[in-house]
């Protein structure tokens, strides 16, 4: 009897603590705090051949094999049904919405977009359906990626017998994140479309869905042309995502190389969605058991918890870089024409003509040693997040003079801070962009480095993805002359918005423009 009482006491205490903790996280100064949901209700409908809602509910029967209800028959005991977002809903949505043959990085971006879109509806309490009016969800899609039945039915990605395509999808979903606007913890309405040429389309009801230049998706490259037929052009272009991470203008094949190739899903998401942050989503069961999740819930340590922001504020993406040879003679100057985008959450603002933000570079050799850079290209004094993209020319006169070999030219955006320091974005946790260039010996030039062994003042210690350390504030840069003549790109016409989601009202919150933490302000 005492054991029973003790057990009941423990259960009640745990329940009260959990409720108290949940309450603490739900209410802060009267404002609701959004926490990633784990389940969503879905009305499963028979679908038309292109995934539209027929208006007819799938029958609750294993013999119900109408399109949309499940290739192996309707698998649930009820309809509508509540499903787990990660292991039941998204695991079937992602491969239905994006070809599984796409890059795993593109699939990861797709998963984040689909997850955000799902959370947006879950927060509103919407009972969604499985049609393309929301996201195509056909039960059994994940299972159909292989002939083998996963041995963990409840959480298929924990299975040890996954097929290659299933394992690829699970790899794309192993680090679940979702998008919110920078000034809010509410998930964004992360629309995406199959393809759209040149420039995506603004959805005027959602600030994250601004039109952005998408030059890798263009209409000039023969069989690879971007075709927006039947798409809406809002948010991420799925084919565009695969083009960016594969570095080709063809979404489906390695043809028509593009001058830029991205490395991460973050670059895709921050390119297509404006002024957003990524946040940690629900921990997948494969990585955190009940006890771990319970401990994480009460933990005040530095461990990332669901809902935590996991992206830096200051970000940029190169969209196009012209003038980069794969091979140059030692000492040959370069002039790069760079189209880039502010993908962060703050406007790049400055007050004087010399510019506060600029595009800089460093050279490094095969051993990883970094060498002096002596020039930069200043950027326009106001570069808003997302759009318009900026075009600038970066003149590089200090190309290494030898020895011959493979060098890396690393580009990064940097800022002159109010206290006179120079801060590179890669020091703040974002990615610099590296280009391998083969240096050949040049007649009459002795093999030596431009300033061998001298690490440039203001050069970041390492141009690698930032992982959690404190920002490094560099010493002021001196003695260089800024490039001039850069102008923001003009001439593109924003698309008009399309029909908003029923009941949606235009978002009114203003994007923050004053960075609170980094103290990046221009020298007067």
């Amino acid at each position: 009897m005492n054991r029973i009482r003790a057990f009941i006491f423990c259960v009640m205490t745990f329940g009260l603590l959990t409720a108290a903790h949940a309450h603490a996280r739900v209410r802060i100064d009267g404002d609701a705090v959004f926490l990633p949901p784990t389940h969503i209700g879905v009305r499963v409908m028979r679908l038309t051949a292109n995934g539209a809602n027929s208006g007819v509910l799938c029958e609750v029967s294993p013999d119900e094999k109408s399109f949309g209800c499940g290739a192996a028959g309707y698998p649930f005991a009820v309809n509508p049904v509540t499903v787990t977002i990660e292991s039941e809903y998204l695991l079937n949505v992602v491969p239905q919405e994006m070809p599984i043959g796409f890059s795993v990085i593109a699939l990861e971006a797709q998963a984040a977009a689909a997850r955000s879109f799902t959370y947006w509806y879950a927060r509103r309490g919407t009972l969604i359906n499985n049609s393309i009016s929301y996201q195509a969800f056909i039960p059994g899609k994940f299972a159909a990626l292989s002939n083998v039945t996963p041995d963990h039915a409840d959480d298929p990605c924990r299975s040890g017998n996954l097929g290659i395509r299933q394992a690829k999808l699970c790899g794309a979903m192993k680090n679940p994140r979702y998008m919110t606007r920078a000034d809010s913890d509410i998930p964004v309405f992360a629309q995406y479309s199959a393809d759209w040429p040149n420039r995506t389309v603004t959805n005027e009801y959602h600030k994250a869905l601004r039109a952005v230049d998408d030059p890798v998706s263009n209409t000039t490259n023969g069989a690879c042309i971007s075709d927006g037929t039947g798409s809406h052009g809002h948010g991420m272009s799925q084919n565009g995502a695969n083009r960016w991470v594969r570095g080709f203008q063809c979404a489906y094949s390695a043809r028509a190389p593009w001058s830029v190739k991205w490395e991460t899903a973050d670059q895709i998401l921050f390119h297509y969605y404006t002024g957003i942050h990524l946040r940690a989503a629900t921990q997948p069961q494969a990585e955190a058991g009940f006890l771990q999740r319970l401990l994480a819930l009460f933990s005040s340590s530095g461990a990332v918890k669901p809902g935590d922001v996991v992206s830096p504020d200051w970000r940029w993406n190169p969209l196009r870089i012209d003038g980069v040879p794969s091979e140059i003679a030692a000492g040959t100057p370069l002039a790069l024409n760079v189209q880039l985008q502010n993908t962060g959450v703050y406007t790049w603002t400055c007050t004087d003509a010399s510019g506060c933000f600029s595009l800089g570079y460093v050279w490094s050799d095969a051993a990883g040693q970094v060498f002096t850079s002596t020039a930069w290209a200043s950027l326009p004094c106001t570069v808003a997040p997302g759009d318009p993209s900026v075009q600038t020319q970066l003149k590089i006169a200090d190309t290494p003079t030898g020895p011959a070999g493979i060098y890396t030219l690393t580009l990064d955006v940097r800022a002159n801070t109010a206290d006179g320091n120079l801060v590179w974005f890669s020091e703040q946790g974002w990615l610099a962009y590296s280009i391998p260039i083969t240096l050949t010996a040049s007649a009459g030039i002795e093999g030596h480095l431009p300033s061998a062994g001298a690490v440039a003042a203001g050069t970041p210690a390492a141009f690698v993805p930032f992982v959690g350390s404190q920002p490094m504030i560099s010493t002021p840069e001196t003695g260089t002359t800024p490039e001039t003549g850069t102008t923001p790109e003009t001439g593109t016409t924003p698309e008009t918005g399309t029909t908003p989601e029923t009941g949606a009202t235009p978002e009114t919150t203003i994007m923050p423009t004053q960075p609170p933490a980094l103290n990046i302000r221009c020298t007067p």
Partner: protein
Amino acid sequence: MNRHTFFALLVVAGIVVIVIAGLLPTDVPASDSGVAASVATVDTVGQGACAFVPAPPAARAARAARRPQLKLGEKRDLGWSGPPIRIADWIEPSSELLVVAQSAVPGREIVALFNPRSSALRTLSERTVAQSLPMWSARAQALDEKKDQGFAALAQSHDPEAASAAYVNPELQIAAEPNGDRFIAWTSFGARFVDTPNAIECDLVVNRVEGRPDRPLIDVKWSRDGRFVALLMLADFDRLGPTVLRILDVQKGVWHDVAVGELAVSSVTWVPGRSVALVTAADLGAADGMDVMFVVDAESGAVARVDNAPVLFTPAYWGVRFSPDGTQLAASCVVPDPDGVVRRGSLCAWEVALP
């Protein structure tokens, strides 16, 4: 169904159709569209790919000025109000609607004839629930599917009761030329073009895109004048939503794509006696599932919105069909409840004005 099964089925279907076509009466006049000329456009007999090619851009541009027009009169009720009904066809000679209605038996549905004059619904047969609709041709060759009857069959009868006994494999669909001489057997994987009088078979590969997987076919419709075939396909393999509408000119052996603004085409219905198609299209950015009507000139690809047209809920599923003489248009005018579920429906029609 894999590709091997598909092509095996195509062969079986071809044999069955050719045999039955040979038994059919020959009193049906051949179409006067000159389609026999298309024989020259098929490169090999019995094997290989059909020699259809993209229409030259210059030729398309020269014809682009032809702007099609289609106007609908006032909507009228056809006298059905109750459980929603899908329209498969508007058949001759009885001018009845071939429809599919819900069955009281789970997993089953009723194939029936609806008489607009009497508002009577007459059951022909019952079948397993299927996305594809039963078909009807000018020769009263009913094409339907029945579970576990593994191959295509055509019925030779003007009697709807007898015709209802004919079946086609649910995974294999057939788009037949109105006079019955030629047909396209297709699944989402591909299509086989069969010209029975000339003993020509070839793969219809117009859904192939260089450097990427074939586009899955989702609908194939042969125009009533026999000259054009509309092929509706998903824009990308393994991804729902966006579609591509490709018009094949069987007479000239060329094809071209039709874009309806930024919308996704969801269904195609040919206007009898005209080289004009009615297409419905939807905005994939909207969550309401409502489709808008457009008219397409098959020769030029020019598109215009239908005057006075209603907005319909998922007509690709519920059906939009012209009367055999092309003077009326019928649709299943279902309206979903706020939860997106269709619980009741009606049948409605409009007078059609084509300049």
